[in-house]
């Protein structure tokens, strides 16, 4: 009988947490069910590999798929090296003084800056000042900029978690600072870094606001993949199909199909990264 109170209390405590988890899962299931059940009928290789036709009321989503893939590649190529280096600089090199703290605070703050503001900045910097025009390159770099603070913050969080004694261990055997970082600190922090990068990139791939003014087009008739041309992207395509297209009702199945493809593309990216992370962890053990 001594344990009665704690037990009931702990059941209540436990179920509060369980309930919130269930609710979150419910949200996910609703979203997935809606998209899969309504989009599945459209989904086929043909849908993915054919271009939109008949004023986008028929055909598939090949053009936007290509656009999104290329766009994400530009984003990754820009943001990962710069983001990770910047985090390493801040955490391993910069002295922990007020300046660094201010910079860190600013970067944290920048990860809360609305993505549309990055769109404005991309417009001003890449489209206008650097004369890239509304183009794949401008949009990709804009998304890259948007991703930077996230990558920096998550990378830094992962780095901070490595205890100093681990760094000391490497330094004490004569490793240079760079070697310590490359061989000990970064590998130990890798799962955290990877998680951050993955989440950031999949987010970037699904972003619409920053590419609104920097290069996304309602329609292009051929996907040439040139960096200086406008492009179609899956998220923008879905936005257009669900709000702008002439016959929203008629293209709704295509919209669902597009949503499903977009979700699949993003999930595939995540799975690839999960795989890397899993492999990494296995190696570590």
């Amino acid at each position, binding site marked *: 009988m001594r344990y009665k109170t704690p037990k009931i209390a702990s059941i209540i405590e436990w179920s509060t947490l369980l309930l919130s988890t269930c609710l979150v899962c419910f949200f996910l299931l609703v979203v997935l069910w809606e998209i899969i059940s309504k989009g599945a009928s459209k989904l086929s290789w043909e849908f993915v590999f054919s271009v939109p036709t008949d004023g986008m009321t028929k055909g598939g989503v090949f053009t936007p798929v290509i656009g999104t893939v290329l766009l994400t590649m530009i984003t990754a190529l820009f943001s990962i090296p710069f983001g990770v280096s910047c985090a390493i600089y801040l955490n391993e090199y910069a002295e922990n003084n007020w300046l660094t703290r201010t910079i860190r605070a600013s970067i944290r703050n920048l990860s809360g800056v609305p993505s549309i503001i990055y769109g404005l900045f991309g417009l001003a910097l890449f489209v206008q000042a650097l004369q890239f025009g*509304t183009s794949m390159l401008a949009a990709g770099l804009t998304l890259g900029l948007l991703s930077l603070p996230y990558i920096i913050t998550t990378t830094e969080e992962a780095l901070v978690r490595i205890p100093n004694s681990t760094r000391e261990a490497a330094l004490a055997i004569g490793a240079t600072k760079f070697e310590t970082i490359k061989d000990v600190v970064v590998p130990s922090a890798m799962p955290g870094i990877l998680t951050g990068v993955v989440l950031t990139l999949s987010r970037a791939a699904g972003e619409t606001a920053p590419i609104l003014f920097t290069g996304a*087009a309602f329609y292009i008739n051929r996907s040439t993949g040139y960096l200086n041309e406008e*492009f179609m992207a899956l998220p923008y395509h879905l936005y257009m199909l669900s*709000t*702008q297209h002439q016959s929203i009702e008629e293209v709704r199945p295509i919209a669902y199909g597009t949503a499903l493809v977009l979700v699949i593309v993003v999930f595939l990216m995540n799975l690839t990264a999960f795989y890397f992370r899993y492999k990494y962890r296995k190696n570590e053990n």
Partner: protein
Amino acid sequence: GNRDNSIKMKGSDTEVNLAVNLAEKFAAIDPAFNIAISGGGSGLGITSLLNGQADIANSSRPLSEEEIQQFKNKGIALRTIVFAEDATAFVVHRDLPLEEIDVLTLGKILKGEIRNWSELTTTHLPINIYGRQSSSGTHSFVKKKLNIEFSTAAKEMTGNAQILEGVKADKSGIGYVGAGYVAHEANANQSVKILKIKESETEIARSPTDPESINHRLYFFQRPLYQFVIEKSWHKVKPLVDFERSPQGKQLIEAHGYYIIE
């Protein structure tokens, strides 16, 4: 900079679907043809021309004085093409007991002076206005034509289609869209009702889907659809414009619910 054979077309949401279809058909004839088309509203198209981000702007309104000046200041020469005639349709829910409306009353509704359908009909519902965003040529066209300011309660939908969606579901909604968006509504099972417009209480109400009225320029909200082309890009755009004017192009335009007036 753009590659030589690649065209950027931006602007009117009213025209964008038509433009896509035209481009698609033309691309079948000329495989080297390469175009990117975006909507966003006439204002967006014109601004993009100014900013060097487009070769053609589709516009459902003429250039404003201010814009003409801006082009002059920047030293950008334009060609103006009128390629079709549009009739802006006002739509309400199909259950609303209202068939026609005069311009003055319509203005009051859009201004927010008349706030309840009970003032016009037997329905007791507050009026919901489904409008367009300010970059819309249609938006400024209606505003100018009625000489009003829109009520701030008006929802700003980002495209014609969203307005239709809204009105379809909303028993108390009213909205406006280009003719192309209701072309099929006239005969199909009518998910929205197209209001007939009369210029004053006494005149005949006319429908935007009635070619007769349009051809005689009798519908109150009728207007030309423009394309502005940057002179410098004219050489690459010309084949497309020629295609629009070909019989096949004209046929497409009409099939989309717009009109050709010679």
